């Protein structure tokens, strides 16, 4: 007897977030990225619409990431010394569709760059590359509150994705994003209750839930991957069941977590690339919409994996 496939009908939809604005939309991007909008769990094409593919963003820094693995440093070479050259390399050599510029150099312990310097860098990046941009702070709340509003203003109208807003520090960034027409990343520490609460707090300031991307924070393979997976799955199930406060796309910082694993530290080894891929593949299945990754080889594999899953 033929087995009957059970088809679930979900009442909810994940909100659709657009990153980047074209020239006729008040920006200067050559293409835009849309994420979210799905009406079912990942890759269950028979159950509901999945209008947008997950997308990989190349992670670049404003300073040379000297503590990165030699495998990564070898791959990018001298371009690491200049974020604009690095960005161009990602776009021209590796066909990056989306860039995530991490402003690590603004951190008081890593160079303490000023808001003016960082805003200048963002303006330059926007001039030199035409893909949409994710602008990511240094993680020091006080410093991020100085640099991110300045960067937001420098990128006004470009519909960037800017983060992170956290429960203890979301007001300054939300106000800036609201004023300059961007989207925001809301970060919660692998905690679905805080993710929901933060989304409510941000939307209470007038930024609609449709402009929020959730950074659920993740662990790499062997470092809490399953925990992150289950939180993302639970949030997505709630979203599809109709909870709008959790119906936002996810951004996952795959590269940052994967390359921290001790298994990647082996010299002269491709293990880090594999670690980054495996972590990405698992979290794609959990519902990741934007994957921020580092190694071009890992990214290439993941992009073709996504194409394959979408049957194209």
């Amino acid at each position, binding site marked *: 007897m033929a087995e009957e496939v059970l088809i679930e009908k979900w009442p909810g939809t994940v909100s659709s977030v657009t990153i980047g604005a074209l020239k006729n939309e008040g920006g200067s991007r050559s293409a835009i990225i849309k994420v979210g909008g799905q009406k079912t769990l990942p890759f269950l094409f028979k159950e509901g619409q999945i209008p947008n593919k997950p997308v990989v963003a190349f992670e670049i820094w404003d300073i040379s990431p000297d503590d990165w693995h030699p495998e990564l440093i070898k791959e990018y070479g001298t371009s690491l010394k200049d974020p604009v050259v690095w960005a161009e390399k990602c776009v021209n050599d590796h066909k990056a569709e989306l860039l995530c510029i991490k402003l690590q150099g603004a951190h008081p312990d890593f160079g303490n760059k000023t808001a003016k310097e960082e805003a200048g860098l963002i303006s330059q990046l926007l001039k030199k590359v035409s893909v949409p941009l994710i602008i990511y702070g240094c993680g020091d709340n006080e410093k991020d509150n100085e640099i991110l509003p300045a960067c937001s203003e420098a990128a006004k109208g470009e519909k960037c994705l800017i983060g992170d807003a956290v429960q203890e520090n979301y007001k300054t960034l939300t106000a800036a994003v609201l004023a300059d027409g961007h989207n925001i990343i809301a970060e919660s520490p692998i905690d679905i*209750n*805080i993710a*929901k609460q933060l989304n*409510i707090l941000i939307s209470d300031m007038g930024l609609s839930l449709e402009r929020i991307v959730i950074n659920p924070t993740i662990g790499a393979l062997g470092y809490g991957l399953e925990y992150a997976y289950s939180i993302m799955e639970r949030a997505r199930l709630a979203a599809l069941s109709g909870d709008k406060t959790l119906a936002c796309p996810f951004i996952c910082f795959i590269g940052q977590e994967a390359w921290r694993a001790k298994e990647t530290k082996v010299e002269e080894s491709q293990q880090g690339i594999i670690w980054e891929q495996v972590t990405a593949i698992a979290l794609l299945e959990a519902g990741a919409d934007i994957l921020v990754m580092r190694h071009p080889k890992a990214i290439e594999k993941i992009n073709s994996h996504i194409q394959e899953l979408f049957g194209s």
Partner: protein
Amino acid sequence: MLIIGELINGMYANIGKAIKEKNKEIIKKCALEQINAGADALDVNCGPASRKPAEDIVWLVEAIQEVTDRPLSLDSSKPEVIEAGLKALKNKSIINSTTADQDKLDKLIPLAKKYNSKLIGLTISTKGIPQNKDQRLELAAMIVSSCVEQGYPVEELYIDPIVMPVNVAQAQTREILEAIKEFKIISEPSPKTIVGLSNVSQGAIARNLINRTFLVMALESGLDAAILDPLDRELLDAAITAELILNKQIYCDSYLEAFKKK
């Protein structure tokens, strides 16, 4: 839980007067107040005083549709009044209601199919009001099987166990709660369940407290929908909290507020 606001009913003095004077503003205001308070859908009932219910329901539907696209529950015991309302309705619809009598089922199920409407089925028949759980289940099974026979999707059907006032039929309340639980095992897929909440406190003094205590207990029994007064803030807060405790909603500190963003 699907919340259907009960306040647009000609039985209430303000609505009865508005229908009589054809004052749309009062109806629109009442619709919006209920939606802003958390109603997913609105019940529409011309009330017992209406001389021309088939005309009045059309007027009510048209007035409400000017301010909302939420589903409307057309509440009448007369199929021709419901059909008049369905014809005028652009929003999604809920037929409120059919009884377990074959002649009613044969009229209203085809209407529900034709207009792609949800259907409320009361476990009551011309033989009278059921006295216990088993009689309710029997009547529910009749409604379900009639839906299956006529090709109407059972998951669109809402079975109402007929809630009795606790001050006159105290022994029934427990039977009703158990019936809500057991309606689910009548068929696969199961029908949904609904109550007209305020009946439970009819004639009692502590009406709000009785309503919300019963609603919480019914939710625990698996209730899917209720026709109620959404302006009763404590009632809605109790229902939201019950759903939280039943793990139907994800907790956050502002969970009451999260409900409003649904």
